[in-house]
Structure formats: C-alpha cells, structure tokens
C-alpha cells in the first residue's frame, strides 16, 4: 500500500514553472497569511477594546488562579494598576487592601452570584463570577464587578422614607388613641350607649392602623439589616405561655378548642431577643386563630432535640392553596382565600416572623392543605452560628 502511494505521488506530474512564477506564487501565499494575521490581530484588538471599555469591572483568573487580565474599570474600583497585579496568584493579591474581600470570596468558592461588597461609603459592588470554558476545556474564571451604589442609595431612601412616614404617623395616631380612650372611660363626660359603640369601633380601627404602622417599621428595620436588639437567656416555654395568655379572650370568643403541649424534656435557657420572638410567636398564633372557623382547633406544641427547639402551631383552618404556598413568606403577600376570609391584613406578619427566626439562626416552614388546616413551625438552635445583630 505504502509503496503504491509513494509511487502514485511520484508519478504526479507537476506543472513546469519558472523561478519568477514560483516567487510570485510564494509572495501571494505570504500576503494571504499576513492578511489572516492582521485580521486575527484586529479581532483581538476589538475584543480587548470591548473588555477595556466595558462599563463593569472585569478580572480574569487563569486555571492556576493567577490574574491574567484586569480592565481599567476594575483597576479604578480596586485602586490598583494592571502592571502591579497581573500574573499574581490569589494569595499574593491579598496584599492589596481593596482586592482582599474579593480574594476572600474567591478562595471560598469560585461560584459567586450577586454578592455585595462595600469598598467605601460611596462604592458598593455586586460581584458575580462566570467560569469560562472552550468546549470541555476550563480556561479560568471571569469576575464581574458591577457598581450598585446608586441602587443601594435608592433602596435606602425608600426605607428611610417609610421609616420616617411611619414615625410621623405614630404621633397623631397616639393622640387619637388617647382621646378615644378618655372618651370611652368617661373622663370627658357621660356618653350614650350608641356613642360608645361607635367610639369602640373607631378605637379598634385606630389600633389596627397602629399595628400596621408597627409592621411597616419592623420591615424597614429588617431591610436596614439592624434588627435583633438584646439577646437574653430565657425559658422559651415561659415566653410562649406569655404570648398564649394574650390570646385567651380571642380563643374563648371563637370557641376554639385550644391545646398547649410543652416540652417533654428539660430544655436549657436560650438567648433570644424576647420582644421579637414574642412578635413571631404572636404572628403564628394570630394567623392560626384568625383563619380557623369557630369551634375549630388550634394546638401549640413544643419539641426539643439536642441541637434545637421547635415551636409548631397546628390549626383546622382554611389552609393555604397549593399554588400560593411558595410565596407565603414574601413581603405583602396574602393568599387569595385569606383575603376572602379576612379583608384586613398587611401581608407582613409572616415576612417579619421569618426574618426574626432567621436572625436567631433558625428556620421557618409549614405544611398545609386548603380547607383542612395548616401547621406552621419554626426552629431555633441553642447556639446559633451566625446571627444578625443591631
């Protein structure tokens, strides 16, 4: 076979060319190559120009985790010059103060999605990474730095506005509350039965408004990230009992079959922001009573493991429709059947509760079937790893 091929090749008749013709042909080929090279350079320059002029900061780390590219925007954000940092590995880059937090993130994981980093008062960056591949081959990691200072400022302005408005509303609402109370107490003279009925209804409306304002203030505090105040070691069971005490009248009024099951083992004291935990428990209990029809049942039970305690409240209420269950803990959300049962409600209670529990290092959850009832629960570890603090 091999011999044959060679033979065939040898037999090929090459056209006769003069040296000049050969020279010209070679020149042609060289020109083509040169053109291709120029085109490649042009492409490369274009790509570089896009990277250079990109409005986000870009960093590219190669497979060995060495920085191989940094664009001017990233240089500016991080106060470094490309010459100083290119070719350096992650551990070398720690020396640059502004790169330190980013390097810290990259060392933990190379998959970062919209992580916020505050480099200075007026520079907040959102960091996202993308792993760069060509076919199956990993080339490295692209780090995108996006300036979100303005978005954060607007978010803060919104939170500040709600906080200010809510605070301002509290003063007149207090004045109304006090006036109505004094009228109802007969401090400003005798009132008729009919007047009393109207005043009582007005008083209750005003109380609802105060409640709503308090909810809004709680939400703004959650959004400002300063939420838990003082953690004091307390008996969780005592805290729960105190809250239940506040609902005795409502339970009686709705003729609800109520049951409380305490811990079945000895449980140590837990560090809690007591007021906030009471608020979370109240929200859970309030929902259970509110959305359970007369003569229904509500069971509050406490359980404990070696690591955590668990609070749960089971009711025979209206339940949560399946298609709406995943949105239940989001801000302002109210399930359709809840709105039908009870028009009042801010849709903030569960959102606030979730944040309170998570700030304590715990988890919230529920099981529910529409028309049959729900069980809402939360857990709190004895020792939380990471907690949000004021």
């Amino acid at each position, binding site marked *: 076979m091999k011999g044959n091929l060679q033979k065939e090749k040898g037999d090929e008749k090459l056209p006769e060319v003069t040296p000049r013709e050969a020279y010209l042909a070679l020149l042609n080929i060289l020109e083509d190559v040169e053109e291709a090279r120029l085109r490649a350079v042009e492409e490369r320059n274009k790509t570089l120009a896009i990277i250079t002029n990109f409005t986000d900061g870009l960093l590219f780390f190669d497979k060995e985790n060495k920085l191989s590219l940094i664009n001017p925007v990233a240089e500016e954000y991080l106060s470094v010059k490309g010459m100083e940092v290119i070719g350096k590995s992650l551990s070398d880059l720690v020396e640059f103060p502004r790169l330190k937090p980013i390097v810290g993130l990259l060392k933990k994981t190379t998959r970062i999605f919209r992580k916020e980093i505050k480099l200075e008062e007026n520079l907040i960056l959102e960091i996202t990474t993308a792993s760069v591949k060509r076919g199956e081959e990993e080339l490295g990691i692209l780090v995108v730095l996006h300036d979100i200072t303005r978005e954060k400022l607007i978010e803060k302005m919104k939170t500040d506005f709600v906080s200010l408005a809510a*605070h301002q509303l*509290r*003063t007149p*609402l*207090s*004045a109304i*509350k*006090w*006036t109505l*109370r*004094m009228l109802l*107490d007969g*401090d*400003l003279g005798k009132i008729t039965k009919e007047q009393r009925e109207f005043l009582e209804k007005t008083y209750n409306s005003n109380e609802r408004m*105060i409640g709503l*304002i*308090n909810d809004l203030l709680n939400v703004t505090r959650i959004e400002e990230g300063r939420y838990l*105040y*003082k953690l004091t070691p307390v008996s969780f069971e005592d805290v729960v009992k105190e809250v239940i005490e506040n609902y005795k009248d409502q339970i009686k009024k709705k003729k609800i079959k109520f049951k409380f099951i305490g811990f079945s083992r000895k449980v140590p004291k837990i560090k809690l922001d007591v*007021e906030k935990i009471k608020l979370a428990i109240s929200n859970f209990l309030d929902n259970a009573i509110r959305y359970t029809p007369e003569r229904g049942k509500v069971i509050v039970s406490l359980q404990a493991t070696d690591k955590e305690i668990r609070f749960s409240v089971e009711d025979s209420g209206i339940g949560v429709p399946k298609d709406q269950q995943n949105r239940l803990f989001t801000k302002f959300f109210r399930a359709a059947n809840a709105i039908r049962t009870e028009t009042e409600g801010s849709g903030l209670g569960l959102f606030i509760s979730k944040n309170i529990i998570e700030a304590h290092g715990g988890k919230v959850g529920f099981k529910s079937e529409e028309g049959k009832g729900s069980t809402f629960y939360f857990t709190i570890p004895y020792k939380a790893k990471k907690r949000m603090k*004021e």
Partner: protein
Amino acid sequence: MSNNAKKILLVEDEELIVNLLQRKLETEGYEVFVARDGIEGLEKMKKTKPDLVLLDIIMPRMGGFEVMEAMKKDKGLRDIPVIVISNSGQPVELDRARQLGARDWLIKTEFDPKEVLAKVKKQIG
C-alpha cells in the same frame, strides 16, 4: 385644688397629648405645669420644683435626653423622678432613658392616659 397637691411638670410638644394628660392628671388632684420644649421645661423645673416630670423625647429646641443630662448636672433637679414618654419605643431609646436615670417609661402608641396615671401614682402616690 389644695395647696399640698403634688406637682407634675409635663414637658411635651404635642398639644392634644398635653390637653388630655393635663385633664386626666388634674381630675386626679395633681397640680400640672406644662412646658412645650426642653428649654422651657428646665426653666419651669427650677421655678416650680415639681414632684415628678413627664418628659417627651423628641421636641423642638431641646429634646428629652438633653433635659435629663442637664438635670443630672444640677443639684436641685437631679433627684426629681422622671417618667419618659417615648414616641418610637425603640429599645435603643428606652435603654438610653434608663441610663440617664428615668424611673419609668411609656410608649405613646401602646399606653393610654389611664396607664400613665397608674405609672404616676406608682412614683408619687
């Protein structure tokens, strides 16, 4: 009103709250003086030597915390019991009031005049 009636100085800028509290306290036989801000409050405190001060926190010209700081520095005023009337009810604010020596506190949206009276009685009978 008898001459040996206990004197209460109410330092508060919200007019309606002042009217209501004054009425409630006077009905109970207390002699009530009113100041609309911290500066006026300190002046009246020196003049009237009240048995108790009901003090708002956020007021024009001079707030409640500054009033309490000034009271601490003044021998004649430092022993007058203070009940703080807070609008926000923020734990931070209440802690500060306690540190400055407030005997008690109440949050406007959570309490009403009857409960204020109970707190007053607890302090000065």
